[in-house]
């Protein structure tokens, strides 16, 4: 019996060792490429042209970042990215919360119709071209508001908030109503403060997708003054690719300067995500679980 237990402990230890080794390899596979990008963005164009490094370039320099900021448009893009994310998140969350609060009341006339109408939008959409034609006829092409208005409502988020509102004890609402508060007052001064955790979760995910979104720009915006960082980066990538394909065997210098600019822009574009990532992490599980709740 004792021998058997020892043997099992041994098995278990072998299992743990293999498991942790494999996970460590996975960590390396994720971290090394990321590190390589970051450190490459800080290397001089000479070191970039020579290549030959993975962890540490032969010469460090800030010239790539200087080159990026010499171009004023990057500051403009940064501003657009921040503006569209901040305004987009606040309006999205408040708009969804308002609709969700209305739909969380069972005695609302026409509720079944409203909910059915919303659920259909979760499964069917007009797709790329009809949506483009709509945006065009609304005059939203080349307007900043195309980032905000079409993104106001997601019925998925409405359902999440609606379920959250339903779990708020009704006694709070009743006592406020006795004091003469209307629905809007109850919503703004009781439900909004109470549902901060749920709204924060939605805000986080919505914020990341606003920051990372590039298709909206690609489809509806041609005015470079309205380009967010993602689109700016895309332009740089496409430009340098066509350049380097023209220059196969040609001048290496152009390729490496654009490469340096590209790397620095990648880091700048990703930095805000990495900075709020620790904050974001608190909402992962709650966010996914909220999403998994069916109506």
């Amino acid at each position, binding site marked *: 019996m004792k021998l058997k237990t020892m043997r099992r402990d041994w098995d278990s230890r072998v299992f743990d060792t293999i498991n942790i080794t494999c996970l460590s390899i996975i960590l390396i596979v994720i971290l090394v490429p990321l590190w390589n990008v970051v450190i490459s963005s800080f290397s001089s164009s000479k070191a970039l042209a020579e290549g030959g490094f993975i962890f540490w370039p032969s010469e460090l320099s800030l010239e790539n970042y200087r080159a990026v900021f010499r171009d004023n448009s990057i500051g403009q893009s940064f501003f657009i990215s921040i503006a569209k994310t901040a305004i987009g998140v606040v309006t999205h969350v408040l708009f969804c919360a308002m609709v969700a609060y209305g739909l969380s009341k069972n005695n609302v006339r026409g509720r079944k119709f409203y909910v059915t109408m919303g659920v259909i939008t979760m499964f069917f959409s*007009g797709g790329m071209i009809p949506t483009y034609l709509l945006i065009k006829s609304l005059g939203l092409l080349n307007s900043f508001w195309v980032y905000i208005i079409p993104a106001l409502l997601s019925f998925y988020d409405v359902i999440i908030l609606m379920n959250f509102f339903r779990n708020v004890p009704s006694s709070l609402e009743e006592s406020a109503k006795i004091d003469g508060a209307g629905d809007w007052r109850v919503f703004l001064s009781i439900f909004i403060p109470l549902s901060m955790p749920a709204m924060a979760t939605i805000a986080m995910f919505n914020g990341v997708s606003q920051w990372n979104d590039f298709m909206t720009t690609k489809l509806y915006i041609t005015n470079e003054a309205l380009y967010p960082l993602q689109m700016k*980066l895309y332009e740089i990538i496409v430009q340098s690719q066509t350049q380097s394909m023209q220059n196969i065997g040609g001048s290496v210098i152009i390729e490496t300067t654009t490469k340096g600019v590209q790397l620095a822009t990648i880091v700048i574009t990703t930095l805000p995500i990495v900075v709020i990532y620790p904050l974001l992490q608190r909402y992962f599980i709650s966010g996914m679980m909220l999403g998994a709740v069916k109506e």
Partner: protein
Amino acid sequence: MSKASGYISEKPSVGHRIKQFFVDFVRQWEIQSMIWPGVIFMFIFCYIPIYGLTIAFKRYTVIDRIDSAPWVALENFEIILSDKFFWESVVNTLGISFLKLAIGFIVPIILAIMIYEVSLSGFKKFVQTISYLPHFLSWIVLGGMLINWFATTGLFNELLLALGIIDEPRNILLDPDKYWWIATLSDIWKEAGWGTILYLAVMAKIDPTYYEAAKIDGANRLKQIWHITIPNMKLMISLNLILTISGLLGSNLDQTLVLMNSQNREKAEVINSYVYRMGMTQGDFSYATAVGLGVSIVSVILLVSANAVTKRLNDNQSVL
């Protein structure tokens, strides 16, 4: 909703019910004023584009209005059948999707089990933190990174040279035959960690006494995984499988747009990017809409049949 007027004993007439509806509606104006902006929004931004799908059956040009364009019945769909480039994009979409299904579906399950089995809580947290991170990078950022990793002086070539696997650096993004693998593996690199979250949430609910009982019966760790952990994940696995199968014809437009170049286009063009190219670049709105509509109809059929099959496998319990 009829319960609201349940205090009326006899069944009220239709006219009375309509009147009651409006009386209630006006009485609830505050609540209704919260919902209606949403209703109007959905009408404009979701239902008008759904109506706009009719241009798939019309010959629509930029100067037309949607309702005045002439009907052409199924003409656009007939063109699809003989469109060589469309079918090329279908082959690429399916090829990449099946690779993603075969590998990308399994990896998060295995990774979740591996993370679940770690008992050092510090290490476990660290692995989770790092493996979720790539999910939050945009495809444009990751595309830019991939282009740099695969460049002739980039990480990938340096690594292979150092290991002696190749003698000459080559940019594999310019090699069409490698594209499907690049698309698949980069997607796995980005999403596998994030894909573990729901599995880990399910596993956290498994009753630990199962494992204790299995230990007493002499089951080793692998046996415990096989007989306890995996059966408990079955429902979540089939839910994910259904969603993956219904998405077989969907493809990642961001990924394709950033990784496609003139050299690998023949293997990189997928249905979504083809719709984009036909519609937005070439301005053939009707044709592009027809392609998109056809593909979404097939996707719905896939979803329904995948649900039916897994329902049978799961003892008639539907996961959707």
